[in-house]
């Protein structure tokens, strides 16, 4: 069965510094992987997705993620954090029946 592990439940960065949110996945086949973001009292918004094309995926708001099969990782990065990036981020894998399997989430705090 497919699963994802988000390695940090909370990450705190200063505004203007890089962001790294870590995700490892487990899949018996070539997976589709997603990062979703949830701002307080808002729904889940797609940041980016990997679907077996380019391994470096660019998303909205300056985020990107790199699919590394050898490490079974799909870490999310951003060169420079902004206050508006404070939210909860979910790493998600699509399973064989196309339902989504979510990680536990990482809460990103951005300090001014």
């Amino acid at each position: 069965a497919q699963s994802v592990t988000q390695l940090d439940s909370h990450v705190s960065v200063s505004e203007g510094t890089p962001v790294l949110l870590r995700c490892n996945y487990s899949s018996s086949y070539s997976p589709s992987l997603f990062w979703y973001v949830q701002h307080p009292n808002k729904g889940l918004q797609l940041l980016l997705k990997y679907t077996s094309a380019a391994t470096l995926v660019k998303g909205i708001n300056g985020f990107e993620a790199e699919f590394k099969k050898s490490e079974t990782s799909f870490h999310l990065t951003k060169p420079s954090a902004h206050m508006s990036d404070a939210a909860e981020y979910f790493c998600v894998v699509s399973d064989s029946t196309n339902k989504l399997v979510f990680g536990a989430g990482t809460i990103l705090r951005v300090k001014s």
Partner: protein
Amino acid sequence: EPEVTQTPSHQVTQMGQEVILRCVPISNHLYFYWYRQILGQKVEFLVSFYNNEISEKSEIFDDQFSVERPDGSNFTLKIRSTKLEDSAMYFCASRLSIYSGETQYFGPGTRLLVL
């Protein structure tokens, strides 16, 4: 940009009461989903729906739950007799095709509180 909408945004109900959560998926989408997130826990799959029938359901989706697409635009989740443990945020999602990389678009959620 088209979006998934959900009503109500919040619902408070008494244990044992029936609730209906409503969703309007994106208009040309064909596949519909309900997920839920109990406070402090992971978002978890409940049910998927295609061509007017359930495609897949999780262990959580027991006989107390049902889904319906009554009029070609709405997609509803009914909980027949609510329990305290049904308190959660319920998300509706839709997608255009069954292609594995197809994005699921989520609504803003309905926060259900069972007292």
